[in-house]
């Protein structure tokens, strides 16, 4: 470290300081008060629920987004990054949540792209580059063939590659956005050792994670964010997990998402031994009439893939899916629909809606066949059916012929729900039903799901929001790396028990 002589009681200048950063995407406000102060030689945790604005903050630091308002200084000087290259040049390295690799290129090239070691005539020194890559892997204690293409690497190896890339940048600020999500225990330990080494060299590290055990094991300071705003920063030794959780959630978890008690009926959906190599394996569960079953787990654990396979969109190698005791053909969404399965996908804009079409057209999309007379659909039939569902779900739209794309996120979600409910399903899969929806509408969607369960529907809800899972689910199935690792009844489901099962490998979960 090259510290300039200073009075010991004056605060050292922060390497990176963000203050009151705001950022909105159209009408959606992602950040209202992003505030963060990173010190030299410190590992700083940034925690918050999904949607708290952590990733947006990171992307502003990385130069990917530009802030709307607020102060951003590096070593005391104000900066305005307009590209990722500028942030990189300023000494900021970022490991993103999703690996960003070039599948066609070799592992080595992926690490050094844009800054390969060069010899005479600017010729890339491939030998030196490979040696450096091997040295990096040595330091991380992993064995990856540096010459192989990154295509086909496991998620864990991809993540390690991202880490190797960031370390090789020799940055003064290293940001890790959930780097451990896909890593095994040994790999996590190695990563931590490297992070501590970098800290001792005087670098500032920002560590974003949902795993509190890791936060407490690694970090010295923790900043909590909620709903796009800064809540608190404290030394890790002065705080506790319950305290952080309370600040993250900021409200009483259990009363926010009330699922009304309804009698639970017979088994409607039964999934047995569903396996697709490399994606999920030996997945078995049942969903009963009137029951809400939550599929919880980390992003990337394979929950959406399971739902898509059950619905017949994705293939599976072995296993069975039955509805009311009747098996359903695999790889056939139409067979699944006929049997009474409906799937409200995660990405409603891409997979759930035809944005340029009207509310009525979208709401009747899944029942066009039954609506048609001699192959023709009249506006009256379309509007009639749509009106029923629009009013039952309280879709707020000027008219049924309004383009769906102009509705708010919550109302779009209701239209998708209407579309599937019109098919009169027995089992409803909802994938992240409240992602990107404001708090008020969230509650409405939850009330709706609860009502539907009350009417005897079996609901399988995929959700990454813990409060939602705990509040809504009669049973929580936790998926970890493509397997169901825990089946927790409502009474026993707590943030700790679910998070524990979601973050720990086989055998340990209750």
């Amino acid at each position, binding site marked *: 470290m090259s510290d300039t002589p200073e009075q010991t009681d004056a605060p050292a200048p922060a390497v990176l300081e963000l203050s009151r950063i705001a950022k909105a995407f159209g009408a959606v406000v992602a950040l209202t008060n992003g505030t963060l102060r990173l010190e030299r030689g410190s590992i700083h945790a940034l925690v918050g629920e999904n949607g708290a604005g952590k990733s947006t903050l990171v992307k502003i630091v990385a130069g990917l987004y530009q802030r709307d308002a607020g102060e951003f200084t590096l070593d005391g000087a104000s900066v305005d990054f307009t590209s990722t*290259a500028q942030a990189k040049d300023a000494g900021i390295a970022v490991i993103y949540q999703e690996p960003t690799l070039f599948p*066609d290129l070799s592992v080595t090239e992926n690490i050094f792209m844009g800054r*390969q070691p060069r010899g005479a005539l*600017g010729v*890339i020194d491939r030998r030196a580059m490979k040696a450096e890559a091997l040295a990096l892997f040595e330091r991380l204690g992993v064995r990856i063939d540096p010459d192989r293409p990154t*295509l*086909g*690497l496991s998620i864990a190896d991809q993540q390690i590659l991202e880490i190797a890339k960031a370390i090789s940048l020799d940055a003064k600020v290293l940001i890790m956005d959930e780097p451990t999500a896909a890593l095994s225990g040994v790999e996590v330990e190695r990563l931590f050792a490297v992070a501590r080494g970098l800290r001792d060299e005087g670098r500032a590290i920002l560590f974003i994670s949902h795993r509190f055990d890791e936060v407490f094991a690694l970090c010295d300071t923790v900043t909590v964010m909620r709903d796009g705003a800064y809540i608190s920063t404290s030394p890790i030794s002065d705080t506790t997990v319950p305290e952080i959780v309370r600040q993250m959630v900021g409200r009483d978890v259990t009363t926010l998402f009330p699922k009304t008690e309804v009698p639970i009926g017979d088994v409607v959906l039964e999934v047995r031994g569903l396996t697709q190599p490399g994606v999920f394996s030996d997945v078995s569960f049942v969903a009963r009439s009137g029951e809400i079953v939550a599929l919880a787990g980390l992003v990337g654990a394979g929950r959406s893939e399971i739902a898509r396979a059950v619905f017949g969109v994705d293939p599976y190698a072995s296993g069975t899916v039955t509805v009311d005791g009747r098996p359903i053909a695999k790889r056939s969404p139409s067979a699944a629909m006929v049997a009474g399965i409906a799937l409200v996908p995660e990405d409603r804009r891409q997979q759930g809606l035809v944005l340029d079409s009207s509310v009525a057209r979208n709401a009747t999309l899944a029942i066009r066949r039954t609506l048609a007379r001699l192959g023709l659909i009249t506006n009256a039939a379309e509007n009639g059916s749509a009106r029923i569902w629009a009013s039952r779900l309280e879709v707020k739209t000027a008219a049924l012929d309004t383009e769906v794309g102009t509705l708010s996120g919550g109302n779009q979600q209701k239209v998708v729900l209407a579309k599937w409910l019109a098919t009169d399903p027995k089992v409803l899969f909802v994938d992240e039903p409240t992602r990107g929806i404001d708090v008020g509408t969230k509650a409405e969607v939850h009330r709706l799901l609860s009502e539907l369960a009350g009417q005897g529907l079996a609901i399988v809800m995929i959700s990454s929001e813990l409060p939602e899972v705990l509040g809504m689910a009669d049973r929580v199935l936790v998926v970890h790396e493509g397997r169901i690792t825990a089946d927790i009844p409502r009474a026993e489901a707590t943030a700790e028990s679910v998070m524990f099962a979601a973050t720990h490998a086989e055998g340990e979960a209750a």
Partner: protein
Amino acid sequence: MTRVGHLLKARETGILLALVIVVAATTIKNPAFLFSTDGWRDLLLTPAILMLVAVGQAIVIITRSVDLSVGSVVGLSAYLTGRTFIDLPGLPWPTVFLIGLVFGGLLGLVNGALVAFAKVPALVITLGTLYIYRGINVMWTGSDRINASDMPKEFLALGTSSLLGIPYLTIIAVVVLVAAGWYMYTQRAGRELYAIGSDPAAAHLYGLKVTQRVLAAFVVCGALAGLAGVLYAARYGTVNSQAGSGWELDAVGAAVIGGVAIFGGSGTVWGAAIGAYLLLTINRALPVIGVQDFWQRAVVGVLILGAIVLDRVLAVRQSRRLTEARNS
């Protein structure tokens, strides 16, 4: 794996082998195909100009774009070359040579700028400029045409003469190919073109200069098409308003046959060049073997489909192998 092993497995080796087989089979049928002065010369000469265009096309395709206007660029620069000799008779031929090259580069710049800044897929942009450039050509040329007598002898010699039994055109094409191949493999900018084609979003996150690189790829592609236009004038001596028409598809076909992935990120200019040789050599070989005219285009089509299917099969096999390697 050893160097030899890599070489044997390389996609380019397979194409080269196919080329050798075609030449060998045709030569057995008619020895003059290879073992005559004309046969030897034609074998080397005919594909040389297309090879230049294919190399440029490959560079653009590697960045996950495509340039459909290259045929029109060839035609326009060929006519410009002839016109310059007529209108500015005092100009030495190397200057005219350079004018054609720069002119092609400028047309490429227009393509690149439209693609990079208008954010419209290159397929659509260059389909537009294909017609625009050709339209300008037709307007300018009218029913006129350039004849060999309009151009200086030394310049025409460039298109027909040889050095030590190797035509000048072939030498130029090979020099360009070697330079392009060297650049794409050893230079940072070359590797970044692959990265951009492999995953444009990731390239952006890496902080690579995506816009600038894609623009450069189009300029190079245009310049090579411009060079091809100049050489077209030298080789054929006659240039009308339809010169180079349809070459864009030959160039794309050559690149695909040579193993350049149409979605970018992989393949080499070497493969594209060999693909161009194979494409035009087959065209010449089929009549010798006795295949009807009628079927010749279809054979080219089969070749392209075959190459794509082969790529697909190889990709699936590789993906499976890599996944297994990780699981074991």
